[in-house]
C-alpha cells in the first residue's frame, strides 16, 4: 500500500491507521447492536409506549339519569357545564391574552395569570382550568373572541343540576368523586378513580339505575394534546330516568309551611312526611333547614363543607327519617287502639279527669290543670286528655303497649329507600332490663302512655303508624321510587308489609276521635281544617330534656333551644284517607298552633290539585255525552283511585273506556 502516513516514518501511520479504522468499525458495530437492542429486543414494548404517547382514550362520561317527580317534573338532571382552560404551550402573548380574559370575565388579569403560572417541560402541554362552570353569557363572550386568544380553550362536561335547589336535598342526596375505600367494595366493581357516584340519598341508592354506561373515544393526539384524528368512538349510554312518588307541589307547599312568618325571623326547623296510606307512596319528605346539593355537583369546596358540617342546626341531617323525637300526644291514638283491642276499655268507657293522676304516690298532671271532667275515648282524643291515657296505660301494661306500638311499625326502620334511617325506640320491660339492668317501674308506663319517657320515633314512622290507622290496619313500607306497573295493571301495587292486630271497628273508633280533633269544636287540631274535606289528626308536644326548669313559664320567655317540639299528624279524607301528613316543628311549642298549620298547607294543596284535576276532567269531557262526564267524576272520587299517578289524561281514558 502506498501509505504516505506509514511509509515515510518509522512505525508512523500504517498501524495507527489500521487501529483507527478498527475503532471506527467497532464504534459503528456498537451502534448497530444498540439499534438491535432498542428496535428488535425492546421494540414491542417501546412501540406500545409510543402508542400510549399518541393514542389517548378519552372517556365520554354518560349523563346520569334524570330524577322526576310523580307528575314527570324534573327534579335532578344533567346539563352541560363549560369550563375555561388555558394551554400554556399555545399562549402567544400571555399578557395580552390575560388582559383580554380579565375584561371578558370581569376578573383581575394578574390573578388569572398567576393561576396558570409558568409551567415548564411537559406541564406546558397540560391545560390549566381557569374557571369551572362558566356562566353562559361569559362563555358566549369568550367564544366570540376565541380567534384572538390562542391557547384559550373551552371544555364541556356533564354536571348534575338539582332544579329546585335545596327543596329535595335530603331525598335526592348528593354526588361526589368515588372514595378510595369505596373503590375496594364489591358493589363498586367497574368503577375507577375519579368516577362520580351518588354519595347519599337516592343518588346513592339508585346508583345502578341512574348511572349510564360511559363511552369513549380513541384519538390520536399530538404532543400539545391536540386531537389530530378520531380513531374510533363508542357512544355513552345515558342512565335511566327514575320517576319518584314525590309530588313537587306538595313538597313546595310543605317548605312554604316552614318559612318564617315574618321576614326578620329565621326559617323554622323540623320535618314533614306526606304519605299515600293506600299505597305507601311518599308524597313529600321535607327536612329543614336544608342545603343546596348543587354545591356538591362540581366537587364541594372545603369552606362550604366545613360550614355545613359545623352548622349548629345540622342542615345535612334528614330529620324526617333520622330525627328521633318523643311522640308526645300523637302516641295516644295507638294507646287508644291498644286499649280497645285489649278490652281494657270500650267505646263507652269513661274516665274522670280532675287535672291530675295519682299513681304510686306520685302525681301526674294533665296538660289542662282544671281537668277535662268525665271523658270517653273519643273525647280523650279530641281534647288530648292526659289522665284518660295515664289510666289506659296502667290498664294495658308496658309490654302489651310495646307489642301494639311495634305492630304499627314503630321501633324499627320503615325500610324507605334511604340509608341512615333511624328506628326510634319502643320501650318494654325486657328492653329496660337489657339496656339498664334494672326492672321497669309501673310509674314509667304512665309517662309512656302519653308518648313521653323513653319513646322515640321519627316523623316517617309516625306517618306510617297513622297510615295504618287511616287505611284500616295495613302497615306500609314507604316508597320513594314509583314502582313499574306490571303489564295490564292500571293501579299501582300497594306496599303493605303487615297488618296491625286491631279490629277494623276499633280503628274506626280511633279515626272518629282523630277527626274530632280537627273538626269538632274544642278539638286541639282545628287549625288543620281544609274546606270541603274531613280531616283527622292529632296534635303532640314533645318535651325537650330539662323542661321542668321552665314549667309554667310563658313560651316566649323560654330560650328557643329548650322549647318543646310541636307535632301534628293528620290524614284526610278521614273516612277514606288518601294522604297522611306528619309534621314536626322543632322548638315551636304546641302542635295545634305551630305544626297543624304546616300540615294544613300540604293537605290544602293536595285537595286543591285533586279538585283541579277533577275539574279538568269534567271540562274536557265532550258536552254531548253528559253520562261520560258524570262517570268521570265517579272515577276520580273512587276510593281506590290514585291521585297523582292517574293524571288527567289517564283518568279521562278510563272514563272513555267505560261503556
Amino acid at each position, binding site marked *: 500500500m502506498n501509505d504516505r502516513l506509514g511509509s515515510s516514518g518509522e512505525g508512523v501511520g500504517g498501524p495507527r*491507521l489500521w487501529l483507527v479504522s478498527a475503532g471506527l*468499525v467497532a464504534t459503528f458495530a456498537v451502534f448497530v447492536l444498540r439499534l438491535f437492542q432498542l428496535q428488535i429486543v425492546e421494540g414491542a414494548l417501546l412501540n406500545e409506549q409510543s402508542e400510549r404517547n399518541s393514542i389517548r382514550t378519552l372517556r365520554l362520561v354518560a349523563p346520569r339519569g334524570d330524577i322526576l317527580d310523580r307528575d314527570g317534573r324534573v327534579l335532578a338532571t344533567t346539563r352541560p357545564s363549560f369550563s375555561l382552560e388555558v394551554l400554556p404551550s399555545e399562549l402567544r402573548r400571555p399578557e395580552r391574552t390575560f388582559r383580554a380574559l380579565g375584561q371578558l370575565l370581569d376578573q383581575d388579569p394578574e390573578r388569572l395569570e398567576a393561576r396558570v403560572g409558568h409551567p415548564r417541560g411537559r406541564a406546558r402541554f397540560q391545560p390549566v382550568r381557569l374557571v369551572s362552570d362558566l356562566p353562559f353569557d361569559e362563555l358566549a363572550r369568550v367564544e366570540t373572541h376565541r380567534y384572538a386568544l390562542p391557547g384559550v380553550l373551552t371544555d364541556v362536561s356533564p354536571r348534575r343540576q338539582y332544579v329546585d335547589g335545596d327543596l329535595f336535598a335530603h331525598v335526592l342526596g348528593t354526588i361526589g368523586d368515588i372514595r378510595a375505600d369505596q373503590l375496594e367494595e364489591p358493589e363498586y366493581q367497574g368503577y375507577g378513580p375519579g368516577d362520580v357516584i351518588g354519595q347519599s340519598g337516592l343518588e346513592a341508592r339508585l346508583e345502578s339505575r341512574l348511572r349510564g354506561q360511559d363511552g369513549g373515544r380513541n384519538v390520536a393526539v399530538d404532543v400539545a394534546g391536540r386531537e389530530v384524528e378520531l380513531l374510533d368512538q363508542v357512544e355513552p349510554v345515558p342512565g335511566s330516568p327514575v320517576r319518584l312518588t314525590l309530588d313537587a307541589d306538595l313538597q313546595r307547599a310543605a317548605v312554604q309551611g316552614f318559612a318564617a312568618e315574618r321576614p326578620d325571623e329565621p326559617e323554622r326547623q323540623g320535618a314533614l312526611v306526606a304519605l299515600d296510606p293506600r299505597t305507601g307512596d311518599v308524597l313529600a319528605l321535607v327536612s329543614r333547614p336544608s342545603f343546596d346539593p348543587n354545591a356538591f355537583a362540581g366537587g364541594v369546596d372545603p369552606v362550604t363543607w366545613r360550614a355545613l358540617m359545623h352548622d349548629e342546626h345540622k342542615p345535612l341531617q334528614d330529620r324526617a327519617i333520622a330525627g328521633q323525637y318523643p311522640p308526645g300526644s300523637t302516641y295516644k291514638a295507638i294507646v287508644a287502639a291498644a286499649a280497645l283491642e285489649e278490652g281494657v276499655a270500650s267505646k263507652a268507657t269513661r274516665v274522670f279527669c280532675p287535672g291530675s293522676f295519682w299513681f304510686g304516690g306520685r302525681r301526674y298532671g294533665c296538660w289542662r290543670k282544671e281537668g277535662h271532667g268525665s271523658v270517653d275515648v273519643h273525647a280523650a282524643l279530641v281534647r288530648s286528655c292526659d289522665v284518660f291515657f295515664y289510666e289506659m296505660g296502667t290498664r294495658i301494661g308496658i309490654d302489651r303497649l310495646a307489642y301494639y306500638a311495634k305492630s304499627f311499625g314503630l321501633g324499627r326502620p320503615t325500610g324507605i329507600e334511604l340509608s341512615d334511617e333511624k328506628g326510634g325506640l319502643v320501650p318494654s320491660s325486657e328492653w329496660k332490663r337489657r339496656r339498664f339492668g334494672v326492672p321497669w317501674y309501673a310509674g314509667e308506663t304512665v309517662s309512656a302512655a302519653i308518648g313521653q319517657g323513653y319513646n322515640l320515633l321519627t316523623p316517617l314512622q309516625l306517618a306510617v303508624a297513622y297510615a295504618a290507622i287511616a287505611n284500616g290496619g295495613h302497615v306500609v313500607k314507604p316508597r320513594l321510587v314509583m314502582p313499574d306497573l306490571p303489564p295490564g295493571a292500571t293501579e299501582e301495587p300497594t306496599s303493605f308489609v303487615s297488618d296491625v292486630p286491631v279490629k277494623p271497628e276499633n280503628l274506626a273508633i280511633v279515626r272518629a276521635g282523630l277527626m274530632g280533633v280537627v273538626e269538632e269544636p274544642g278539638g286541639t287540631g282545628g287549625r288543620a281544617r281544609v274546606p270541603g274535606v274531613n280531616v283527622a289528626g292529632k296534635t303532640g308536644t314533645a318535651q325537650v330534656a330539662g323542661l321542668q326548669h321552665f314549667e309554667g313559664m310563658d313560651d316566649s320567655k323560654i330560650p328557643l333551644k329548650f322549647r318543646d317540639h310541636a307535632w301534628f299528624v293528620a290524614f284526610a279524607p278521614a273516612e277514606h284517607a288518601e294522604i297522611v301528613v306528619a309534621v314536626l316543628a322543632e322548638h315551636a311549642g304546641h302542635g295545634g298552633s305551630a305544626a297543624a298549620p304546616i300540615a294544613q298547607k300540604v293537605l290544602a294543596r293536595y285537595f286543591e290539585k285533586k279538585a283541579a284535576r277533577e275539574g279538568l276532567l269534567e271540562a274536557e269531557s265532550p258536552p254531548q255525552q253528559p253520562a261520560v262526564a258524570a262517570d268521570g267524576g265517579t272515577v276520580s272520587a273512587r276510593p281506590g283511585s290514585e291521585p297523582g299517578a292517574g293524571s288527567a289524561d289517564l283518568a279521562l281514558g278510563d272514563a272513555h273506556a267505560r261503556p
Partner: protein
Amino acid sequence: MLGLDRRAWQHFDGVPFGLLLVLLAMGVANLFSATHAGADGVAPQFQRQLVSIGLAGLGLAVAVLVDYRRLERLAFPFYFLACLLTLSTLILAPIYKGNQSWLVFGPLRLQPSELAKLGLVLALSRYFQRHPPEQLHRLRDLWGPGLVIALPVAIIVAQRDTGVALLTLLVGASYLLFVHIPWRAWAVVIAAGGAGFAALVGFALEPYQRSRILDFLEPGRDPLASGYQAIQSRIAIGSGGLFGKGFLAGTQTQLRFLPTQHTDFIFSVLAEEWGFVGSALVLSLYLALLLWGLLVASRSKDGFGAMLAVGVVAMLFWPAVINIAMVLGLAPVIGVALPLFSYGGSAMIANLIGVGLLLNVSMRRYLF
C-alpha cells in the same frame, strides 16, 4: 488553475460519491418527514435546507475542481479569515437560542464556527505538512499545533456554543493520534484534555446542559422535563421495529413527541420511520464514507493531502458519533447535529466542501 486533467477524472471515486448521493437523498427525504409534521405543504425549513444543499453542492464542486495543492498556501489565510468571522459574531450577532454564533445577512444566516472547523483542518494539515508528525517527538513540539487548535476553540467557547467548541477541539486532537511523542507525554496530553473538559463542564456549560449530563448518568431523573428528550427518542427508535412505521407515518415524529427532531434528533426520525433496516443502512453508509476517507488519507501522495483527509474524516466522524450515541441513549444529550442529515446550512456547506476535498485528494493521488 482548475485541474481538469483527464487522468484526474479517471481516478474520480465514483462509488463513494454515489454513496454520498444516496446518503444525501435519504437525508433530504428524512428531513422532509421531520419538518412535515404538523405543517401544511412543504415546511420553510425544508425549503431552506434544499437551498443550502444547492450551495453546498457548489462548494463541493469547487473543492473537487481546485487542485488541493493550491490550497496549501491559502490554508492559513482561510483559517484566520474563518476565525475572524467567528470572532465578529461576538460583536455583531444577537444572542439566539442561548448562544451567539450566527451572522445574519438578510435572508442568509451563517454559522462561522462551522467554517472555523474547516479552517482548522486546513491549517493543521498545512502545519503538519511543514512539521511532519513523525518528527514530533517531544511534548513541547505540541505548542504549535496546540495554539492553532486553541484559537478557534477559545472563540467558540466565548460564543457559548459548547457543542461546536467540543467538536472543534476533538477534530484538532484527532491529529495528535499521528504524532510520535513518548507515552509519558501522552499522559500529560490526556491530563490536560481531561482538565480542559472538566473546566468546560464546570464553567462553560449552561445549567440545562449540566442537567442533561446528570440525566444521562441517571435516566428517569426528571422524566417530564430535562429527561424528556432522551425518553421520547428512545421510544421513537424502539417503536420503529425492524422495518419502521413508514415514511411520514412515525407517530413520535408526526405528532411532534420528538424534541428538536429536524436537528439533534433527526436520526430518531429515521429510526422510527425506516426501522432497524433503514437505520442500519444509513450507519453502514456513514461507515463506508469514513473508511473511504481513511483510505484516501493512506493513499495520498503527499503529507498535506493525507492530513487533509484525516482532518475531514475527523470533522465528519466526531459529530456523527456523538450525535448517534446521544440519540441512542449511549451519551448525554448535548446539542450536536448529525452531519449530512440534520437541518443546518452552514454545517452542510462545510461538510460537503470537506467531502469535496476528499474526492480532490483521492483523484489526484497519481498526479505529480
